[in-house]
Each structure stands twice: as structure tokens, then as C-alpha cells.
């Protein structure tokens, strides 16, 4: 019984096993294209956004809540970044981060002070933030300008 940690238990390795099977199946089904360097890089590049959001969402879910605002927050922070890009890279990044922090604080306060449960609190801020995101650009699409450096 002391040797417990050496016993192979499927439950602990479940995700890794599923992952390995997926990689194997995909590699075989795609004749090895799946494992090409360009595809792997693409895969990471495509999932970088969700990957970064998941880090934050993980923390919220671990603490027993949920954050539905992430989509709207991505919208408004990216808009802020692009809108103020002429003021310089550093400024617009800082501005976007501050907006993100503000939204987080508002969510946190609605949950802790107003005692609205996370699902509804973030559902409400999701709508409000999305509304503001449309408002600041008046519903238009704005583009990143090429900055020569």
C-alpha cells in the first residue's frame, strides 16, 4: 500500500491518454500533416486567444464562480487598443489593461457587495460592456494602422 504512487491509475492520466489518442488518430488520418511544424505553430497561434482567456477563467471557476464577460471584454479592450494606437503602443496597451481591470473590479464588486451570483452578475456586465464597445466606435469596424518603426 505504501507503493501507492507507483500504481498506474487510469483516472489520473485520463486527459493525457485522450490527448495522445487524438494526436495519433489525427496524425494517421491526415497522413502526418497534423504533426508538421507549420501545422503545430498554426494550432498554437489559433488557440492563443482562448488559451490566454482560459487562464483567467480557470481562476474564476476554481473559486466557484464563472465569468461570462470575457468575450465582451476582449471586444472592448481590443477596440480601445486600436482606437488609441496613434498615442503609442505603450499607452494603448496600458489603457486596454486598465479597462480590463476596471471590468474585473466591477464584476468582483457586483458579486461580493451586491450579492448577485457570478453567472447573472457577469451576464449583466457582458451586455453593458458589449453596449459600450459598440458605442465607442458607433458600431463601425476600426482597423489597425501599420506603424513603421
Amino acid at each position, binding site marked *: 500500500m505504501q507503493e501507492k504512487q507507483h500504481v498506474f491509475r487510469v483516472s489520473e492520466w485520463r486527459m493525457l491518454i485522450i490527448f495522445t489518442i487524438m494526436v495519433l488518430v489525427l496524425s494517421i488520418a491526415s497522413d502526418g500533416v497534423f504533426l508538421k511544424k507549420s501545422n503545430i505553430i498554426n494550432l498554437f497561434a489559433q488557440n492563443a486567444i482562448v488559451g490566454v482567456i482560459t487562464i483567467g477563467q480557470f481562476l474564476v471557476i476554481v473559486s466557484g464562480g464563472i465569468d461570462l464577460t470575457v468575450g465582451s471584454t476582449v471586444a472592448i479592450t481590443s477596440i480601445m487598443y486600436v482606437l488609441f494606437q496613434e498615442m503609442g503602443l505603450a499607452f494603448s496597451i496600458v489603457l486596454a489593461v486598465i479597462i480590463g481591470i476596471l471590468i474585473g473590479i466591477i464584476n468582483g464588486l457586483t458579486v461580493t457587495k451586491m450579492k*448577485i451570483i457570478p453567472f*447573472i452578475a457577469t451576464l449583466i456586465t457582458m451586455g453593458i460592456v458589449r453596449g459600450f464597445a459598440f458605442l465607442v466606435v458607433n458600431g463601425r469596424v476600426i482597423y489597425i494602422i501599420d506603424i513603421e518603426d
Partner: protein
Amino acid sequence: MEKQHDYQRLLNKYSIYLILAVMIVIAILTSEEFRTFDNIMNLLARMSIVGILAIGQTIILITGNFDLSHGSYIALSSVLIAIIIPLGNFATIGITFIIFIFLGMFNAFFVNRGVASMIVTLGMTGIARSAALFLSNSDAVNLPDGNFGMLAYGTITNIPYCVILWLFLILLFSFLLKYTRIGKNLYAVGGNKESARLSGVNVNRTIYVAFVISAICSLIAGAIYTSRLGVALPDKAVGYEMDSIAAAVIGGTSMKGGVGNLGETLVGVLIYGIITNFFNLIGINAYWQQVFKGLVIAIAVYVNIQKTISTDKRKVG
């Protein structure tokens, strides 16, 4: 002192009705268009979709679960209806009911095996949406000529059929919740699953019933949606699950289970619908509408929580 307390309690108990009344009075006083009979009937007809979804959602929330599949359910049901309706009305009702009972049972099957309802029903969102896109070749399906539009636009003494259907379903399921054993079981499971099981409630069967009711409500809402549009759009009706959850929660349904009733959900739906209608009528920019809508919902939920905190010292949202 005692009187003051009673008055306070009464105010708390009916606070959600008070908010609705204040909103209606403001809307009636400030907008001439709002107080016309036609506008109110139109409003009710449009809200009947979310209203019927909210019935299913309330019942799911009472058992302490979520159903996030509503939007995709609507897309699937409208595509199914448009495809099957040439076979005849009874065939359509029969086949779609069987399919949706099956979908509800699919959700419940996994919920009963310990998967969080949020994840299961999120998975169902993908399944139902893909099925709708697959069956329709990702294209709009036209309804054949017929009288299917009657469901949304036909009236009996100027009251649309879909509104009558909505009110009928509220009465039916209110009766189910209040006076039948299965209704009591739904509350028991939501209040405390373990003690419900120990006192002889068949928890699994109750969860099955809840998810099947939710699927059927979505099917009916989907029929009204299709009837209103006159065409089945497989990629539309996104986000209805959020509307139904918001409406149910504004009405004071607890997201932790065990608390809620359909009368107050009706009030929640009305608050939700009247805000939009009122903002449209007085011509507020659509983007500001989203912001104000969020704020009004926050206030309504906050006020309603005060009620539950003050009456039974439980945190409910």
C-alpha cells in the same frame, strides 16, 4: 414597530411586481405608442418566445441545473418543422416531439451521471446547432404555403394565439409545480438532492422530467419563432438561453435550486420585454439600450435578492 416590520415584509415580497408596475406606469405616461392595444399585443406576442423558454428554464433552475441549449433548440426545431410540415400537422407534432423528448433525455442522462449541467447543455448547443445546419445544408428553409403563420399572427378576439398558448402553458406548469407529486419532487431535488433521495424521491427521473419539459418548451417556442419569421434559419436564434435565464432570475428564481415560481418568471419576462419595447419606442440608440438594459436588470435582480435575504437569510441570485 411590529406594523413597520410587516409593511417592510410586504414591500419586499412584492418588490418585483412594484418594479414592473413602475415601469409600466412610466412607459404609459411617456410614450403614446406604448399604450395602444396593438403595441401591447405585439409586445406580448414577441415575448411569448422568451416567455415559453423561461417556463422550461425556471423548472430546470428549480432543480438546481441550467439549460444552455435553448437557442440551438430553437434553430433545430424551426428547421425540423420547415422540413417535416409538408407531411402534415400531426406528423410534424409527433416527430418533433419525439426528437425533442429524446434531446431532453440526452441532456438529463449525462446530468444524472454527474456531469455539470452547464457543460452537458453547452455540448447540446453544438449538437443541436450542427444538426440544424446539416439538415438545412446551412441555408434558410422556406415554409411551404399554408396557415402556419397563424400561430404567431392569428388572433382570437384580437389576442394572438401564441399569447394564449403562453398563458395556457404557464397555468399548466404552475399547476404541475404546485399540486402534483412531480412538482414537489422538482423543488425537493433542487433544495437538497441528497435528502430528496433519502426521502424516497426518484432523483434521476425528476431530472429527466425537468430536461424533457425544457426541451418541449423550446420546441413550442421554436414553432412560434418559425411562425413569426415564416422561414427557418439554422444559424439564428443565438443567445435565447441567456434571455430565458435572465428572465427567470429577474423573477426571483434561485440559481441554486429549490426556489422559484412561474408567476414571478412571467413578471421577469414582462420586465425584460417592456424595457426593450420602451427603449425602441422612445428612440434610444441600440447600443445605449444594451447598457441601460443591463443596468435595469441589475437593479431588478438586486432588489429581488434583498427580498430573499431578508425573508429567509439565504443568498439567492
